[in-house]
């Protein structure tokens, strides 16, 4: 369960995020949508304790993230390139994270195998460093790394951006499959309303740092979302 209490983040005088209260139950898949500056990435940074909150707190499975480091054990995340290590090959990068998460070599290989179609032969076994991968391939490598060690909480910032159409579809089915297992809490931000409406059980609409809509996904959700974002 992710719990948010009186969480605000201010940069100078402008408020980047203002969430008085939010609870995400275990196993829920939540989509965050909102225009640029809505506060999606700020929220993720606060959740991962990469920026200090101005007021309030976030609890990740009962652990207050700014107080203890133990949330790291059950949390996987990919926000941007700073979650990859440029001078490693994808294999070395995965091994590094598997080592930290206590995943054995065999388990890692077994874990990576189902992702071969998603990788489309462009990630593994190419002898390329991550810094030489294209933006889309780098994102694919990073998103998969966030899944190593079966995290209970998964945070992905714009996982569909920069991906080619086939990869977007494959990633969507991977995430849907994960969500259907109901043993992982997922937070996914995206600018693609159709993707989140398809993958997530619940959709939060942020606007200028505030939560303006909290929807349970139904067949009508996409139309409703489009109405929210359509210019008046």
């Amino acid at each position, binding site marked *: 369960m992710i719990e948010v209490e009186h969480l605000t983040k201010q940069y100078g005088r402008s408020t980047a995020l203002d969430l008085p209260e939010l609870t995400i139950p275990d196993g829920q898949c939540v989509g965050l949508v909102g225009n640029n500056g809505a506060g999606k990435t700020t929220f993720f940074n606060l959740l*991962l*304790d*990469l*920026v*200090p909150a101005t007021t309030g707190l976030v609890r990740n499975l009962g652990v207050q993230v700014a107080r203890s*480091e133990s949330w*790291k*054990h059950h*949390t996987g*995340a990919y*926000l*941007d390139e*700073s*979650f*990859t*290590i*440029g*001078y*490693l*090959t994808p294999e*070395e990068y995965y*091994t*590094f*994270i598997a*080592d*930290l*998460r*206590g995943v054995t070599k065999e388990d890692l290989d077994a874990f990576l195998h189902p992702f071969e179609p998603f990788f489309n032969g462009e990630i593994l076994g190419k*002898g*390329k*460093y991550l*810094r*030489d991968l294209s933006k889309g391939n780098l994102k694919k490598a990073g998103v998969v790394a966030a899944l190593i*060690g079966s995290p209970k909480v998964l945070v992905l910032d714009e996982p569909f951006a920069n991906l080619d159409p086939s990869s977007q579809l494959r990633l969507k089915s991977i995430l849907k499959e994960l969500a259907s297992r109901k043993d992982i809490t997922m937070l996914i931000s995206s600018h693609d309303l159709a993707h989140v409406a398809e993958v997530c059980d619940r959709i939060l609409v942020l606007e200028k740092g505030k939560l303006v809509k909290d929807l349970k996904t139904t067949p009508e959700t996409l139309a409703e979302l489009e109405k929210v974002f359509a210019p008046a």
Partner: protein
Amino acid sequence: MSKVRTAQGTRRGKGISTAYLFASLHWKRAIRSASFGRKLAVNLFLGLFGLVMLFYAALIGWMTIPLLKAQMPGEDPFGMVCSAGLAWMAVELALRMFFLKGGTMQVRPLLILPIRRASIVHYVLAGSVLSYFLLAVSVLLLALGTSLVHHGYVPLHVTGWCLGLLLTSVMLGQLSLLAARRLRFLVAVLTALALVSGAHALGYMDVFHVSRRIFLGLYAKPWLGLVPLGVGALIYGLNFRAMRSRLYQEDRHEQVRAASGSGSMAWTGIFGSAAPFIRLDLRMIWRNKRPRSTLLMSVLFVFYGLIVKDPGNPKEWPMLMFFSFFITGFLVLNFGQYVPAWDSAYYPLLMTQDCTIRQYLRSKVLLLRTGVLVMSLFALPYAVLDRNWALPLLVNMLYNLGITVPMVMFFGSFNTSRIDLGRSAFGNWQGVNAGRFLLVLLIMGPTMAMVVLLKTNYSAQTAMAALAGLGLAGLLVQGPLLRLIEVRYAARKYKTVAGFKEN
């Protein structure tokens, strides 16, 4: 329509404002940087230091002639100044190469704007001409020139002579830039220096005599000052070409295929839970230019010890201690002060992975300690060849293991500037700046002061015992020391993450 016209209007005035635009970009980058406060403090200190140095420069310029007259009555003081000219040039070149900060402007966003590439390069190069060195040299020459006129030398010729020397200084600045940029010029400069000093040592030529003739000639015929101007302009042209061709590659990484691989490094298993980080660090060092050249530089420091001619002489003992400290500790000072900045590109990953800050720090301490041991191993031949080296090396090794390592780690946490691992090639001294030496001074100063004090008040043995004792104590209380650093890192976490994000 009117908007379009305004745009064209601005474009026409561009020539005048380009330099202003670049300067304001530079200024904004400096004051909006996360490490601005720290840099400001360092710069204030350095500024003060610089003023004192300027004062000394003026004093030296003014006092040289009277002092020489008083000390060596029979000689021509001006002739003696001229004799030292070439040696001074060599020293200045060496200093400039060591302290050089290459023109670092983030050019990529500018490349597609309607600014000529040439003006970007000219701005960076012209900026490098205006340096503290030039100021110091100007002050020195001004004082020297005034003193010369005061002692009856012809004002017009003195002016020409001083200008010629100033132009020589500018030329040396350009030469040092070129040598830093192109390996073959560095080799050429070093070869020339070696040949000349070799010829002098072997008696084939007298450098001082040649120097005297050159610089007295400059006084007699001041128009010869145009020679360094011409040479300087030529080197500027070479620099310009070298930089302009580099403009395309400024942000490019070394394109090395990883195909060769480096195995799974299973042997690092001996480091236990720190092993993943050790493997990461080793790959970081081998696969990136900047840490690789830092490491190489540190290893070359081993040869520093050759300066000590007679280790058995008690008078040389302070030197012995100094070099022992540097040889066994330079790697730690040089490499360790960029912990955690080496990991700046992926610091958010490390901060969200399933590992504690303590684990991370422990791996760094292990790495740095291994560095001390390896450097000590490299220094072993000194002790084998002359046993006077043995004790100084041993106690300094202990001290560096126990005290320097945690100290460097502590001070490293203040560093919130991002490091671009792929940026630095061999001979690029960028980053070897004065601020860095301040840190070395901060760590070395108290140590050396203590050694000297104990030696003068008690004995060399006491001083060495104290160093060894401190080192051992540091090793014994490493747990609490590490906790202290850990608290520090945790407190700096957000600042560090934010600072490392900046380019």
